[in-house]
């Protein structure tokens, strides 16, 4: 029986727009993670590369810059949850006893503006314009406002908080605070979601080195324990995330975040009350409100009131998106979850300066996207 799996090194390339190849961006993050762990690339026994918008064999192309070894390198794609799916594969490889030291990297380089719809939608959906990612998330916001009285101001408060947090994150794309007036005055993209409430596709990379407990002790490393990790796809009629064509009007199954959270809390043997801080998928500001409810931070329908109360701010009871979230960092899809994990590793090490959550011991990273792809990782020191 192999014991727990630990993250012994973490590193990232900032998220933003860079005049560099994806191979360069990805290999820089991988090299930083190796250096942080104090291990060499030739010591790594297996590698996983999360990416969505890059060509086949991106993993080998990126990691070749560190030297050509003969280990297994696999590209992993699970939409916005690609990084979580890749990290899970590494955890499983270690738990199986197959390897005891692995590298997981997420890398992306994406054009500006709306994402290429042919990657996600059927041609007929694209012809009719049922193919703009924010529209699906916006429809969830409209329904939530209708059912629970959530307001545009509450949605804007999430964007305000995340942009404000990002001022202290050198890896974020914007690092700029915006006023509530600026946010609520920014252009509507898909009602009720506005430009300053939405994340932008961009470039970036993040990487971690994972090890078995035995290997960690051999290396004399001090790791952050992966207390639980889970990945799932939304089941029938549970979520109308893109590219859904229809939903049932008779069946309302639990959504992917709720299902994945239940699994990962159980695996970690903890409840939401044991988690000190969170990094979650704020594709748009409303999404974060819905996630407060689905992760169990508040009852269903109360997400808007949770942001009003300030509990999710740094210094609050349950801080969310201390890094500034995807709204301020941007979303290089393959890299986004690993970027969250790198942030949380640094939070648990106490290295986050003005955005540090004091005394954080347990942290949760969450991503969610196309097809209802959801991944959650819980880390513990």
């Amino acid at each position: 029986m192999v014991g727990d799996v630990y993250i012994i090194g973490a590193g990232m390339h900032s998220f933003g727009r860079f005049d560099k190849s994806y191979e360069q961006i990805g290999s820089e993050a991988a090299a930083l993670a190796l250096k942080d762990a104090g291990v060499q690339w030739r010591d790594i026994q297996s590698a996983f590369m999360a990416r969505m918008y890059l060509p086949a064999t991106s993993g080998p192309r990126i990691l070749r810059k560190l030297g050509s070894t003969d280990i297994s390198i696999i590209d992993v794609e699970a939409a916005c949850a690609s990084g979580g799916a890749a990290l899970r594969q590494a955890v499983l490889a270690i738990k199986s006893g197959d390897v005891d030291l692995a590298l997981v990297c997420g890398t992306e380089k994406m054009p500006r503006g709306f994402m290429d719809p042919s990657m996600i939608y059927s041609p007929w959906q694209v012809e009719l314009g049922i193919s703009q990612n924010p529209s699906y998330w916006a429809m969830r916001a409209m329904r939530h406002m209708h059912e629970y009285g959530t307001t545009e101001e509450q949605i804007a408060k999430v964007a305000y908080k995340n942009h404000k947090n990002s001022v202290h994150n050198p890896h974020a794309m914007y690092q700029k605070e915006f006023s509530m007036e600026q946010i609520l005055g920014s252009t509507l993209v898909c009602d009720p979601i506005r430009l300053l409430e939405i994340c932008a596709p961009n470039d970036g990379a993040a990487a971690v080195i994972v090890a078995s407990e035995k290997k960690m002790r051999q290396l004399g490393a001090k790791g952050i324990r992966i207390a639980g990790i889970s990945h799932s796809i939304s089941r029938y009629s549970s979520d109308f995330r893109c590219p859904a064509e229809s939903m049932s009007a008779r069946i309302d199954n639990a959504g992917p975040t709720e299902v994945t959270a239940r699994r990962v809390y159980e695996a970690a043997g903890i409840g939401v009350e044991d988690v000190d801080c969170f990094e979650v998928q704020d594709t748009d500001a409303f999404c974060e409100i819905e996630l407060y409810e689905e992760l169990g931070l508040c009852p269903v329908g109360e997400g808007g009131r949770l942001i009003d109360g300030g509990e999710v701010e740094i210094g609050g009871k349950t801080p969310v998106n201390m890094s500034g979230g995807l709204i301020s960092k941007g979303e290089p899809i393959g890299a986004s979850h690993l970027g969250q994990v790198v942030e949380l590793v640094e939070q648990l090490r106490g290295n986050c300066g003005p955005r540090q959550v004091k005394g954080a011991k347990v942290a949760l990273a969450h991503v969610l996207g196309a097809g209802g792809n959801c991944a959650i990782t819980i880390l513990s020191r």
Partner: protein
Amino acid sequence: MAAERIAIKDGLFAGSLERLDEVHLAGSRCGACEETSLGVTSSCSNCGDENLSPVVLGDAGTLYTYTVVRHRPPGNYQGPADFKPFGLGLVEIDNVIRVMAPLSTDPERLQIGMQLKFHPYVLRTNEKGEEVIAFTYDAAGE
């Protein structure tokens, strides 16, 4: 002679495309779980069962939720060259299915719960000279 017509997606519509006032959305009802999938399909999207019966979905719908697309959608969008914001919504039909659909009503008049009516139309003529039939929903009574 009138142009040949094809559906924008195989199996999406019931009825002859020659007479648009007799065209409706098609569905497939599962004999095992009784769920209805959109269009003519070979297996149930809930349980995977292959014992499906074709059904014709009603033309009346209720708006479950919506958004307004304020900027031209990316890629091969075939809407007007001079882009105008349009509604997009989940339209509940016959209490069995909610279909993601473009809405032709003035976006400023959209409201959850409003009554809608199915509206098939000629979207464009393709490279073979065939008319491509698409659909939208109008406000009921318009």
